[in-house]
C-alpha cells in the first residue's frame, strides 16, 4: 500500500472551523499542481462503551475503544485501543457478532467524508469530519499520498518536501489556522515499515483525538 500522511486543521485560537474554510482549502487543492478531482471517499469511526449492568466498575474496561471502517477495505473493520496501543484488523462480520453479544454499545459515531484529488504521482484528500446524525462540521483533515513508495521511512523526505510546498501555497491564502501533523508512533503499535490500512486507521484515530482535544481546549 502506498504511504499516506494525515494532517488535521488547527484553527487559531478564537476562530472556528466552518464550511467556508473548508471550501477555501478545497480551492487551494484544486489549483495546486494541476490537480484532477478523482472521486469521493468515506470512512466511519465509532466510540464504544462497555455495556455493563453495574455501572460502578468501569475502570477495568478500556475507555478509548474505537472501531474504524475504511472505504478501501470494505471487508475489514479495525479496532483500536489507544491507551494500550493495540490495533486489530478484523473481518467486517465482527459487527454482527458484536450486535449479538451486546457487550459493547456504540457511544458516538463520526463520519469522515472526503474528496480525492490526483496530481501526478501524488494524491490528496480533503476530509470533513461530521457526526453520524447531523451535518455540523466538526473538523477538517487532509490526507497526502505518494503512490510509488510503500515504505514509510523511504517516503519521509519526499513527503516532507511536498508538505513544505503545500504549506507555502496555503500561507498565501492567510486562513485562520494551519495544518498540523500528529506523530503516529507506528512502532508502538508494532507495525512494520510497509504501509497498510492499519497505519491509516491509526492516523485517523490520532488525528481525531487531537481534534477533540483542541475542541475541548477552545471550550
Amino acid at each position, binding site marked *: 500500500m502506498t504511504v499516506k500522511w494525515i494532517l488535521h486543521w488547527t484553527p487559531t485560537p478564537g476562530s472556528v472551523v466552518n464550511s467556508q474554510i473548508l471550501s477555501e482549502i478545497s480551492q487551494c487543492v484544486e489549483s495546486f499542481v494541476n490537480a484532477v478531482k478523482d472521486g469521493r471517499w468515506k470512512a466511519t469511526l465509532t466510540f464504544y462503551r462497555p455495556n455493563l449492568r453495574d455501572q460502578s466498575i468501569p475502570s477495568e474496561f478500556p475507555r478509548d475503544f474505537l472501531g474504524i471502517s475504511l472505504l478501501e477495505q470494505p471487508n475489514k473493520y479495525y479496532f483500536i485501543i489507544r491507551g494500550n496501543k493495540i490495533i486489530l484488523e478484523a473481518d467486517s462480520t465482527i459487527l454482527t457478532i458484536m450486535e449479538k453479544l451486546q457487550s459493547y454499545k456504540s457511544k458516538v459515531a463520526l463520519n469522515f467524508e472526503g474528496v480525492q484529488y490526483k496530481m501526478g504521482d*501524488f494524491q490528496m484528500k480533503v476530509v470533513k469530519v461530521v457526526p453520524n446524525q447531523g451535518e455540523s462540521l466538526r473538523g477538517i483533515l487532509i490526507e497526502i499520498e505518494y503512490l510509488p*513508495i510503500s515504505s514509510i521511512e523511504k517516503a519521509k523526505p519526499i513527503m516532507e518536501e511536498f508538505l513544505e510546498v503545500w504549506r507555502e501555497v496555503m500561507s498565501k491564502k492567510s486562513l485562520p489556522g494551519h495544518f498540523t501533523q500528529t506523530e503516529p508512533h507506528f512502532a508502538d503499535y508494532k507495525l512494520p515499515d510497509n504501509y497498510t490500512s492499519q497505519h491509516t486507521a491509526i492516523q485517523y484515530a490520532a488525528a481525531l483525538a487531537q481534534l477533540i482535544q483542541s475542541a475541548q481546549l477552545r471550550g
Partner: protein
Amino acid sequence: MQQQSQQAPPPHSTSTPPPAPPSSTGGSAAEAPPKQVALAMDKLGEAERIIADIRIGADRVLEALFVAASEPRHGTKPLQLFLKEDACMRRYLQDLRSLGKELEESGVRSRKDFWGLHMPLVCPDGTMVGYAWKRQLAGQAGASAVDRTRLALKAFTDQKRRFFPHLDCGLETNESASKKRCGSVESTLDPKEESSILKMLPDVLKSVEKEVPNLKILTFERLDWLKRASTLNSSTNENSVDHSYPGSNKLRLGSLGTVATEKVAVIEMLVPSTFRVVISLHPAGSTDPDAVAFFAPEESGSYVHARGFSVHHVFRHITDYAATALQYFLGNQVESSLYCLLHWICSYQTLFSRPCSKCSRLLAADKQSAFLLPPVLRPYWQFSLSKILSTISTKDHTSDITPAYHLGCFSEEL
C-alpha cells in the same frame, strides 16, 4: 562456414553465428548491395511460395488421413494419396532447405546484429515470415554500409597503431572524443584483462551483486518472466519474509543457479522499497542488453516487462531516459555495456533521498505536466568500465558521488 539450420519450423537460430566479414561469401558477393538485396527478395518470394505449397500439402495429408479413418472400405486409395502427398512434401521441404542455404550463403542470415535488427520472432504457423524477413533485409542493407565503414576504420586504426606508433595519441580510448564531457581517465588495467572479466553473464551479475549491497538480482527465461510478472505482488511479500522456504515454486523461479546461463533472457533487479528494473537480453545468454524499464516494487501485471511502462510518472521518465543511456552504453562501451548499465541503474538507489545537484531540492515541478517529481536524471556518460573499476578499488561507493538532476534543472548543466 555458417551452420545450416532448419527453416520450416521457426527459424530461430540458437547458435551464435560468427560475424562474417562482408566480402567472404559466395558468388553473389561480386554484386553491389542493392542487387544482392533484390536477389535475396526474389529468393524470399520463392520461399514464400514453397511455404504456401507446404501448407496446402499438409492440408491434403490431413484430409487423406481423415478419409482413411472415416471410411476404411476405400482400400488403398487414401494410402496412395497419402504417399503421394508425403513425397511432395519432402520435395518441398528439400527445396526450402536448399533455398535457405542459398540465402545464408549470400549473407542474409549471417551477421551478428549490432544495430538492433534482431532476428524476427516467428509465429508458430509461419505467417509472419515473409514480411518480417523483408523488413530485416532492408534494414540490413542500410546497416551493412555503416558496418563496412566501421570495419574499415578499425582496420585503418589498427594498421596506424602498428606502423606509426608515434602518432598514437590516445584517440582510440574515446570513440566519441568529439563530446567534451566524455573525458574519462585511462585505466591502468590491460584492456584484454578488463573485457575478459565481463564476457560471461554470470560473472557480470555476480560482480555487480558484490559491489552493490542491498541489491537483489534474479534471472529468467523469457517466457518464465511473463508468468512471474503477473504474480509479483503476491511474491514480494514472501520474499522479504523467508528466503529459504522449501518447496515454494515462486521463490525459486529465477536465480543464477537454477536457470541455465545460455537461456537467460530477462534480468530483474530489485532495490527493496525503491524500484524494480527489468532488463531484456538479446540474444539470450549474452551480455547484450536491448531494453530496460523501471517500475515501482509493488507493480505487478503483464505490463511489467523490459518494454513496458510504469503507471507512475517518475518511473516513466526514468525509463525514457534509460533508453538513451542504453544506446550510449551499446555504442560507446561495447564490451562492457551490461556492466556499465547495471552500475548506472544502481545509482538510482538514492532516487527518493538525494536532492538535485543544481537546485538542492528533492521535488521540482515538471515543466510540461506541472507534477512534482524527484530528480530523475543521473548522467550516464560518467559510467565507463575503467571509471567504475577505479571507484570500486578505492572503496568509494559510486552512489555517493553520482549527481542527480531534475528534468528541468538538467538542460543548462550541459
